[in-house]
């Protein structure tokens, strides 16, 4: 297998290298990739969408369809992990269940959380840190039009906050606050918010995701600003999905899918 692998890899590498000979030089502003389609985005995007962050403009408007699907990829991944881990069977599972029940008995005796109680210092720090993290996440989502950021980044930061809580206070306690069902519902609602915005456009008589018609919905806007506002709506949906799904992925992977005991 190793030899076959090596041979395949070398062949692939060689083929790729052959391709490189014809590449335009690295960093050439007049290479075909830089002079054709992207010039439209660079030169026109701000005029057409009123968003100076070009990446956001392309992401959430020009190629918003891609992004909607990308969000659903996260959504699918979350569900997939649920679906896969919830059907574990085999000898090791039984063994683990046995140790778990033993632990449970011990737990009852101790009447504590899961396993050891975290350190007081850690708990206090997290308590202090969490609002800041979440506030920053909101900033990243909301200010994504103007600075690096957006729904994915903000969602990941939010999820990181939740995971931090889960690691400090125990998965069980966190799940009490933010249950599995709510996570799944949020994941679905996030994508729905994105796709629903698109559908609204379609219902109002243009193509799916063509935000310009939404000027009728928002107060005091023109067509271009409607695009900008819609991007914010859409990014919030993305953030919602990414947050809840990454949190659920962590919860599942950390607890072998039974949601009992995290890391």
């Amino acid at each position, binding site marked *: 297998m190793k030899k076959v692998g090596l041979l395949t890899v070398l062949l692939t590498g060689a083929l790729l290298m052959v391709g490189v000979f014809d590449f335009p030089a690295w960093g050439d502003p007049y290479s075909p*990739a830089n002079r054709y389609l992207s010039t439209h985005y660079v030169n026109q995007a701000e005029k057409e969408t009123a968003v100076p962050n070009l990446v956001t403009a392309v992401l959430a408007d020009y190629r918003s369809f*891609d992004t909607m699907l990308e969000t659903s990829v996260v959504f*699918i991944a979350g569900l*997939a992990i649920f*679906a896969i881990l919830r059907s574990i069977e085999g000898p090791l599972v039984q063994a683990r269940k046995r140790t778990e029940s033993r632990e449970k008995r011990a737990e009852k005796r101790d009447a504590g959380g899961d396993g050891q109680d975290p350190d007081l210092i850690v708990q206090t720090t997290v308590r202090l840190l969490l609002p800041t993290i979440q506030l920053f996440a909101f900033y990243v989502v909301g200010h994504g039009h103007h600075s690096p950021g957006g729904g994915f980044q903000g969602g990941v930061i939010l999820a990181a906050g939740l995971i931090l809580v889960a690691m400090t206070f125990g998965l069980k306690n966190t799940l009490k606050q933010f249950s599995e069902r709510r996570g799944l519902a949020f994941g679905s609602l996030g994508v729905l918010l994105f796709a629903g915005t698109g559908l609204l456009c379609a219902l109002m008589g*243009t*193509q799916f995701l063509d935000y310009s018609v939404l000027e009728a919905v928002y107060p005091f806007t023109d067509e271009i600003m409607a695009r900008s506002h819609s991007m914010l709506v859409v990014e919030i949906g993305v953030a919602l999905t990414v947050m809840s799904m990454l949190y659920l992925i962590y919860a599942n992977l950390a607890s072998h899918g039974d949601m009992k005991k995290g890391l």
Partner: protein
Amino acid sequence: MTLAQQAPALILLFPFFGALLTLLIGLYRRSWCWPATVAACAASALAAWSTVVQVAESSNALVTYRMAGWVPPVGIEFRVDALNAGVVFMIAMVSLLVAIFSRTVVINETAGKEHFFYTLFQMLIVGVLGIGLTGDAFNLYVFLEISSLSSYALIAMGRGRAAFSCFNYIMMGTIGASFYLLGVGYLYIKTGSLNMVDISRIMHEQDLFQTSTIHIGFLFILIGVWIKMAFFPLHRWLPNAYTFAPTATSALAAPIMTKVSIYVMIRYMYTVFDPNFVFGMGPRSDVVVWLAVIAMVVGSFYALAKRKLKMMLAYLVIAEVGYMVGGAWLANKTGLTGAIFHIMADGLMTAALFLSAGAIYYKRKSYNVTALKGMFQKMPFTMGAFALAALSMIGIPPTCGFFSKWYLISAGIEAGHYGFVGGLLFSSLVNAILFFRLLEYAYYGEVETPYVAAGKRGKKKGFREKSGRDEAPLSMLVPMWSASLGLVLLGFYSGEVIAFISRYVAEVQF
């Protein structure tokens, strides 16, 4: 825009919204998941039919839809022409049939997880439909990943070796998709565009076909797609993955996933690239056709050697991939027509076979071929549908399997490639042996005793053998027979279908 103009997007949006809503509904009421899925799939099939009609009625056989309203190279475009309209309609129909079929098996095999199952199920449909619809090279990659991710999950939900085979599938699938992405990158670096038609235009205008970058890009897209369709040397992941997956998963994935990859290959060969470029490279096309011949022979032989019904069918899928790839690489119009027609015919055939195999499994709880013994008495309708699908696989007229083979063989003769013709005939004969052996089991075999009807497993005490007929429920029989009768109908109307396809084929410049 009227509703009809929205149809290309609606094909995909119905199952997309269906998936999201199914999860939400399922969190509260699991029994509603199945009706929601069926409704979404039915609406999608309706939209697909409307699109087919629009394509047929439009003067240049083309319907486009601009996502987010941007003009194509800037935005993403759905582009339905005579090539993919039929494929998309087939996918939508097969999805609908499998969705109806899945009612009891899903409750049986993935109890408690129905809402996950149906959400992923619809997402898989979304991914495959999207691959068929989109006109954007990168968007296609996203759809590819959507379909792959949901199929990984759906396969890993199975029992036994499912997780192990799923891991192999993930590895191969990722390599395949990444190679595709690399290939698109190579095209992008040379052309600066992501829209398929636009890429094609730029390559023609700037005469980029001589550059090695474009060659390598084409090669990597091809290898990526070949991995996804399980073409001969890259097929190892498929049999295990499809065999151990839950019934409804394999019934959905086997007919549509490999077929849509073949569609992608044809799309790249003939729309994005130029046939003159693809076939103008010396012996390349001949090598591919010979690989296809090996795929047919090897796939059929392995199928013959297997003892598990689903494993047999999975190897037959590999053999059928050989048919289509071979047809597309014979470099003549008849072969292309045959390959496109076979995508539809084979999708329906595979669906019918996997559905009846699923119904047998549902009743017998075993995929072993000996479980088929005496099934003609126990489940006459299921076996009838199976027999009809088997005849189509062998290529007995007037089922559609015969007509697609007709075109493929005549293309082989036209191209003077008698190896391909021989391989096809050989594979048909092996199919005949295979299926008649199965039917013999079903027709003559004594039912294995004790015959245990579904749902009564494990109850050793007070066990009573179920005598008389033990037919699958109506929710299985209806889709099964629709698929099987569809084969005959497609055979009878193959003239119209071919005329439709040839509107695309006629424009290809050989």
